[in-house]
């Protein structure tokens, strides 16, 4: 049973894979995958989606305490300033890490049914985005009351879409690699831990030493935080940062899609 079989290699032509034709409706598949994750997550819970609001508020409370009582900082509206960094970061880290594990955790579907497998990580990111939108909605209300509404808020859908494209691309890449190397999920966790400190969440861009600013400019998550504060709190236009974020997101999405498409053929042999 353990022998290799050189004759097979010598006699047969190289593998030819028929172009896959999917008959399904990708939006219906996506809808069902998202609602599956939602139902599985909140089944048998008393407070359900409420938790996605409680967690960032607890975090905000702790960080506000530390940075206004322990280390004093003179940032106006500090809790709101904090949430403008915390919410995009939380969305990024949670969507990316659950997205990374998504193909492996949906192994029973991937192994037995032939469908557009890209939809698995994408659906997980979209599911997280629903929480994010809810959190942003409450943040907007708070900012509207405390600071006031401004016209730059109209950029918010653009920023949100770019974030989605960026995280979907990253998740496509890492979820595909996670099938072959399950270490990938720990790599992602570690990167997220590092990013919590290296993204200006509880400090501002003004606190960064000028010789390190270029480094922060390379980080799309930091770019999102920067844009969020500009448009929501300071009534400033997003500027060139938005353009850079757009370019980075599209490149990441393209690479992620290419890698996923290239390796997904062998998923079922490794799951």
């Amino acid at each position: 049973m353990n022998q290799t079989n050189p004759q097979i290699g010598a006699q047969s032509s190289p593998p030819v894979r028929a172009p896959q034709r999917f008959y399904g409706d990708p939006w219906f598949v996506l809808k069902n995958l998202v609602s599956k994750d939602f139902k599985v997550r909140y089944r048998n819970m008393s407070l359900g989606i409420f938790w996605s609001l409680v967690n960032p508020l607890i975090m905000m409370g702790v960080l506000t305490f530390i940075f206004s009582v322990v280390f004093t900082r003179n940032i106006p509206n500090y809790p709101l300033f904090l949430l403008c960094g915390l919410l995009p970061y939380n969305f990024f880290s949670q969507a990316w890490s659950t997205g990374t594990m998504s193909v492996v955790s949906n192994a029973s579907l991937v192994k037995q049914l032939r469908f557009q497998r890209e939809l698995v990580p994408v659906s997980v990111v979209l599911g997280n985005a629903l929480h994010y939108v809810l959190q942003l909605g409450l943040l907007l209300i708070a900012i509207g009351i405390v600071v006031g509404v401004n016209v730059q808020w109209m950029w918010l859908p653009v920023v949100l879409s770019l974030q989605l494209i960026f995280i979907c691309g990253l998740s496509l890449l890492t979820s595909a690699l996670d099938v072959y190397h399950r270490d990938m999920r720990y790599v992602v966790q570690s990167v997220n831990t590092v990013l919590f400190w290296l993204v200006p969440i509880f400090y501002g861009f003004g606190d960064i030493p000028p010789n390190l600013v270029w480094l922060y400019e390379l980080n799309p998550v930091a770019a999102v935080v920067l844009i969020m504060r500009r448009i929501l709190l300071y009534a400033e236009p997003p500027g060139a940062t938005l353009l850079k974020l757009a370019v980075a997101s599209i490149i990441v999405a393209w690479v992620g899609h290419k890698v996923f498409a290239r390796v997904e053929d062998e998923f079922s042999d490794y799951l």
Partner: protein
Amino acid sequence: MTVIEVDNVSKCYALHRQRDLLARRVTRNASPVRSEYWALRDVSIRVERGERLAIIGPNGAGKSTLLRLIAGVSTPTRGSIRVHGRVSALLALGIGLHRDLTGWENINLIASLMGMSETEVRNNLESIVGFADLEDFINEPVRTYSSGMTARLGFSVAIHANPDILILDEVLSVGDEAFRTKCKAKIDEFTNSEKTLLFVSHGLQTAVSLCTRGLWLHEGMVAAEGPVPEVVKTYRDFTKSGQLATHTGPSDPLSGRAGDLASP
């Protein structure tokens, strides 16, 4: 019209994959010793529209591997596979059902993954539930279902997805007599409308009653193919005697087919 074309297909699985760590991957050229298992060796078959093909053979013969390749969830190591038309494959009993979701929620999910549109599911919902005989349990989580109920749900969704090719891998065996009769009637109705069935089972009697053509796989190779009663008889004779009794093919089992015992 030929709906399934399998040409010189081989499928190789690497064994001891759990030791295939990153370090090993990087140094792969330095340590080329990796054991392989050829689940299929140079298999070629053609299936015409409307045929009902039973694939029989002992455990480990490559039956499920062949079905997985035709269903498109796995890819051949060598050779080519062409499938024309919409495929519904029940490759295992649970068929991706999520145990914490209700029957109703699972129907939506599985049906969409099998290629049904939202309208199709809505229009067929009653019929799916009715055929599976699950009216009283449709709002209960699937983890409370018996294996028979699970099989019924999977089969019902697959058949309502209205495929051109239906693939069943040993999924009817857990159903009771009544359900099997119902399935057989449904499959008869289904294949009368120019649809194709691929069927794997250890229940040889079911294979004979359900199918028109038989394919005996042995150690990843085609040992015999032809009308199903003849193939089943050859296979039974072989199993009894413990060897390829009427073996007429080449003596080297690696050189291809082990003999076309029952081809016309």
